[in-house]
């Protein structure tokens, strides 16, 4: 072994369907395919005992960063990145909830809902806060959250215009994001939002086709919401960067597959992003989740194979894959950063959206300096997966970068605190590699659909999927 280069800690080996072996470096996001004949020698080199192994193979391992310079401290590098991002002074991140009220009554909602809207006085305080914080920053990212943010459309329009003007004046870039249930995202509203510009992602949550979605996400008054949201999405996708999130539990995977077929049949595959996330029982609003018949929570260990099948299906339909290895590199949750805050309707500040409405978790108010020494601030700043066990020892750390800090701080069990990819690591890596570099392998990676697909419901346009709820 050349002492100048050592095996990286983050190399994952996985067999490819054609008999070759894939090496993936989870930190540097590099791949290398080796032939069956080369694989034993490659393994030996990566174990550190490759004396006599071909020099050309060793060089390929170096080029692909499976072997890295002995001077590079990978764990130290990640710690430094974590700190750099935590204390970054170039960005200002705001998550704004103009209301915690909502027009839907999702069975699994984690929020501590309450009526009330952001007042004109608070709007002014928020604008003043941005004016104070902006000088010297290169970018401002605003995420409209709720409750349902479109219940306060006028607030969004007024504050967005103010933020854009301030950013222009300071030479900072401005990016807007929104999480909405989509019910109020009607064509006239879409036009108003589109006229503002600067949208990066507008996310609508749809939990399958009509039967499963309407069971989980009914209107507050009890009506169905799928048809209207689906119709709104079709128009919105012509004017805004739409993302569909499907919340998945053990009851609706088939409904989510049907949703993919439905969206593809609407011609949206090339234009919207779709991803799936598990329903978890965290947050004050969903502590009685276990008693609800319409939800059956999946741990991340259970969710992992479901998610992989959904991603494979989405890929086959032409949706772009939001691969774990293609997401922003080494970027942690904004809750642990010092440059981002969550602003509640009354101007109270929080670190985490999961704690919105929890008065005892507040870190201050938008009109006053944050109390940096308060326990509510420090508990987030103490969290550092790159230095704390068990994350620091985990090979998946470069991919999840600690996953959701709220889970860790809440003492969630491992199967909820660890990212789903940990439970299907090899399969996921192979799928992402094939999707990007070897599409010829995709068909051989196994069925993207369950073997016994039930009969097709009428709304999914002939696709062999249906809802289970």
């Amino acid at each position, binding site marked *: 072994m050349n002492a100048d*280069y050592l095996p990286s800690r983050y190399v994952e080996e996985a067999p490819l369907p054609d008999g070759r072996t894939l090496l993936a470096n989870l930190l540097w996001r590099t791949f290398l395919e080796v032939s069956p004949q080369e694989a034993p020698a490659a393994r030996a080199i990566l174990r550190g005992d490759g004396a006599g192994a071909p020099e050309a193979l060793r060089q390929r391992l*170096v080029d692909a*960063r499976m072997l*890295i*310079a002995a*001077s*590079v*401290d990978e764990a*130290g*590098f990640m710690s*430094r*990145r974590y700190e750099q991002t935590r204390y970054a002074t*170039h960005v200002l991140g705001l998550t704004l909830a103009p209301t915690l009220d909502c027009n839907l009554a999702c069975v699994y909602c984690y929020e501590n809902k309450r009526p009330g809207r952001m007042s004109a006085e608070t709007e002014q305080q928020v604008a003043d806060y941005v004016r104070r914080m902006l*000088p*010297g920053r*290169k*970018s401002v990212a605003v995420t409209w959250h709720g409750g349902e943010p479109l219940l306060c459309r006028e607030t969004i329009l007024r504050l967005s215009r103010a933020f854009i003007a301030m950013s222009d004046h*300071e*030479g*900072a*870039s*401005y*990016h807007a994001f929104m999480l909405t249930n989509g019910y109020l995202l009607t064509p006239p509203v879409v036009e108003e939002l*589109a*006229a503002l*510009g*600067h*949208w990066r992602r507008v996310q609508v949550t749809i939990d399958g086709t009509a039967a499963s979605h309407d069971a989980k996400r009914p209107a507050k008054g009890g009506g169905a919401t799928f048809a209207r949201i689906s119709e709104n999405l079709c*128009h919105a*996708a*012509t*004017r*805004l*960067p739409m993302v569909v999130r499907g919340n998945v539990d053990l009851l609706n995977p088939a409904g989510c597959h049907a949703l993919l077929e439905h969206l593809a049949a609407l*011609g*949206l*595959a*090339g*234009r919207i992003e779709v991803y799936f996330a598990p329903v978890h029982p965290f947050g004050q609003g969903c502590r009685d989740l276990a008693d609800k018949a319409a939800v059956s929570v999946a741990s991340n260990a259970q969710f992992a194979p479901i998610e992989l099948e959904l991603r494979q299906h989405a890929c086959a339909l032409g949706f*772009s894959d939001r691969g774990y290895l293609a997401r922003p590199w080494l970027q942690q949750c904004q809750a642990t950063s010092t440059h981002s805050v969550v602003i509640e309707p009354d101007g109270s500040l929080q670190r985490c959206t999961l704690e919105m409405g929890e008065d005892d978790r507040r870190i201050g108010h938008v009109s006053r300096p944050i109390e940096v020494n308060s326990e509510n601030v420090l508990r987030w700043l103490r969290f550092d997966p790159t230095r704390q066990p068990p994350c620091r020892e985990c090979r998946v750390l470069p991919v999840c970068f600690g996953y959701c800090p709220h889970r860790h701080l809440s003492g969630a069990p491992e199967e909820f605190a660890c990212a789903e990819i940990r439970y299907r690591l090899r399969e996921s890596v192979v799928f992402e590699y094939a999707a990007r570099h070897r599409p010829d392998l995709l068909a051989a990676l196994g069925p993207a659909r369950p073997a016994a697909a039930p009969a097709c419901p009428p709304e999914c346009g002939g696709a062999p999927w249906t809802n289970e709820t």
Partner: protein
Amino acid sequence: MPLAPTAEQQARMLDFYYASFSHDVSLMTGLDLANTSVSAQVPLEIADLDGSPLFRDFAIAGADGRRVGVLRSSARGAALPLIDAIMIGQALFDPEVAERDCQARAAAEYPGATVRSRGFVCYGYPRIGVSIDVTRGGQVIRAIYDAHMTALVRELPAGAARPATDAGVRRGEEGEPFYSYSAQLPEAGEVPPFADEWQRAARHMTNVTRVLAHRGVTFRPATAEPPSDRLPPTRAEDALEDFRPAMQGVTLPIGLIGQETPVFCAVATIKMILGYLGFHDPTQAVIAQAVRTGATGTTNDNMIRGLNELTGGKWAATLVDRPTLGDSSQYLGGFVPAKSGIPGHARLLRGYREYVYRDPTTGLPSLRQSFYLVNDPYPTRNGQYAMENAQKPIDDFYRNLLKLQPAT
């Protein structure tokens, strides 16, 4: 920095700006450009059809010397933008090979004649050709060969400063352009049109370099470290991060499709638009028929009619003949691509970028650079991704924007 710098001075300045946003280009192209820089080697000089200097193509290369792209700059100093375009990906042609092959082709196509290359010319932006003098029986003609395809494009009488007709430009058709870029430039005044941009860029670079030096950091140290030793980030990279511009823009995920014939630029552009909108079936031949493509291309009216027909009446296109950057970027912010016209040529606009640099001493905005992200269906059967300066000296650039919206 003089307003007409040497190639070496120019390379240094271009490298400074390329380094400031190369990580963004990486994200757009999906390529690892971390260790790439603008090469200080002699750039490829590209002349206009009238023989005057026009562009300098600087290679973008990795630490191992491997070329990963081209940065096109001005060969006329501040008369043209500092950064005209950046093209990342496989090189369309190797200059040495292209020049040799075009000469060989000319020798074969003009038997008995003496052929001599006069170098590279831009014969209709962004098309690059090799200009060859063909001497036979005492008569000399100029033959322009496409550098990528090694195919004869046009013959010109020797000494002709420009073609008699600017094909594809005057008739409003978008097909195969052939014109003198120089002849389209507005009359030169006392101050070159891009003098302000060049001066701001030079001043900003000087200020940043001075502040970096104060922090003990040299931009691109002379002894380049091997890539593996650059990890974790060096002090220089940390310091440079402070001087990266604020970035704004949109990038639509649209794959490149090359035009199938020399006049199918609009056809291939529409093919890319249709694919994005979910209409994958029509071939270029079908689209060509729908938009009535003739021997010299097609018109915007035909494209509007064809787009509506090809989408089954679901999408309508409208023409904006003189869009501003604001118009185009706001439209792209709706995440629908557009057809954009440059003289005689149709291309796909799939995004834009605006970089705002701030003075390191005052913190105030000191320089803005705006680029369009273009899927150019030229060259035939290939195409190229380009990031082009939104400010062009020719008034006719980025004209005839075809915007799409769902038909009501």
